[in-house]
């Protein structure tokens, strides 16, 4: 993703490229999501233990892994923006945050819905769940900080510092939470341990994951164009585009 990103550091170029790439991400994403959904909901056999409830996995697992990936991408972009003063990287980070937060919420919600039939409770203070919740707070904090500056440049740099401090802390948070719980009570972790999964259940999951990634890319193309427009509203190349079309 980064190689792809690095080439287009000039806003007009990035704007056009994002526009051109968008359909290439969007339509395959829709296609994959449809296939995956069909595979997951219809083709995959019913789990002998979990019955149909397990099918929520096809949304839960991809969104969980996306929520983590997006935060890392955000922090890397923020660091690049801060160190090399690259405006586009800041724009990318800014565009990331709400999407990542959304994936996190989706994980929490689907997880809760999953948890009710599985564990008989909506919520459990399990390390994985707790650290996912903290991740949501980090996203929200990042967005709140960004929103409270009215000068884009300062918002960029301040929130970049937060993202970097956050990424230093994420492993600490993660391990502390694992430690904390494992000292108290061992078994709850095994609840989440992946059962060795049947291939007929697995392939829709992989398809869904790829679909999520592509969908994320497509959404980012849109969001980044929006960000660029907002930031460069005074630039001359924009009026050229506007006149041209």
């Amino acid at each position, binding site marked *: 993703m980064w190689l792809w990103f690095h080439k287009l550091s000039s806003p007009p170029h990035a704007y056009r490229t994002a526009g051109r790439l968008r359909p290439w991400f969007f339509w395959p994403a829709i296609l994959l999501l449809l296939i995956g959904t069909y595979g997951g909901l219809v083709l995959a056999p019913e789990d002998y233990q979990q019955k149909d409830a397990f099918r929520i996995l096809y949304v839960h697992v991809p969104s969980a892994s996306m929520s983590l990936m997006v935060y890392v991408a955000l922090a890397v972009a923020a660091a690049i923006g801060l160190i090399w003063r690259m405006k586009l990287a800041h724009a990318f980070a800014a565009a990331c945050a709400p999407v990542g937060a959304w994936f996190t919420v989706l994980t929490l919600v689907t997880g809760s819905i999953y948890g009710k039939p599985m564990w008989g*409770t*909506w*919520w*459990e*203070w*399990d390390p994985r769940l*707790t650290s996912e*919740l*903290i991740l949501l*707070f980090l996203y*929200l904090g990042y*967005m*709140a900080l960004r*929103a*409270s500056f009215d000068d884009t440049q300062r918002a960029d740099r301040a929130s970049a510092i937060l993202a970097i401090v956050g990424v230093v802390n994420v492993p600490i948070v993660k391990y502390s*939470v694992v430690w*904390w*719980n494992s000292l*108290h*009570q061992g078994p709850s972790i095994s609840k989440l341990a992946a059962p060795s999964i049947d291939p007929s259940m697995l392939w829709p999951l992989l398809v869904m994951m790829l679909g999520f990634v592509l969908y994320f890319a497509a959404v980012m193309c849109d969001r980044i164009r929006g960000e660029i427009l907002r930031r460069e509203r005074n630039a001359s190349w924009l009026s050229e585009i506007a006149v041209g079309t």
Partner: protein
Amino acid sequence: MTAPGLLGLVRLVIARDLKLAVRHWDQVVQPLIFFVIVTTLFPLAISPALDELRKIGPGIVWVAAMLASLLALESLFRPDVEDGTMEQWTLSGQPLSIMLLAKTFTHWLLAGLPLVAISPLVGTALGLPSSVWPVLAISLALGTGSLSILGAIGAALTVAVRRGSVLLALLVLPLEMPVLIFGARAVDLAMHGESVAGPLNLLAAMLLLFVSLGPIAMAAAMRISVES
């Protein structure tokens, strides 16, 4: 000169504060998020087992609500005093107590009501059964009102002081204890399936008392803070 009537005045103050809040909509959700974060601190610090948590759940929710309300109070009057707006209000010839009450009401709308709305979610996380949600919400609705008014009196007293936030906590928390006790008690009773009318009535009575007497104290405190 046609000065606005009482109702007009109240509308004016509320509209202005809502506009300020919308300008910073992100700040409106912050007491809420603070409330959620503080309630998650306890499982981390105490024990993640839902059985254990359930026992102390009502207490935790109430303490968190109190702290969230307290934190948000700090900025209730300070900006207006620092930039001289409050001085102008005292000179406006309008009843200061009504204006401050309207301001406090807006504050409750923005910082108290959302807590009530989200309380079922937080209750669930702490293992409270869904049967107590209504009691939890009602007790919070009544209680946060009282907290806002008591807090506003404290805020008016401490606003002229630098680093007022800790002083504010110091003044206000002891006064707020009865609210905390009855609020937590109501939820606790509900959890054991007992009647909750007693504490809830008391909470309502306290709220009435504070709404009727509080504004006078606020206005008096504010006049002192502005004079200097």
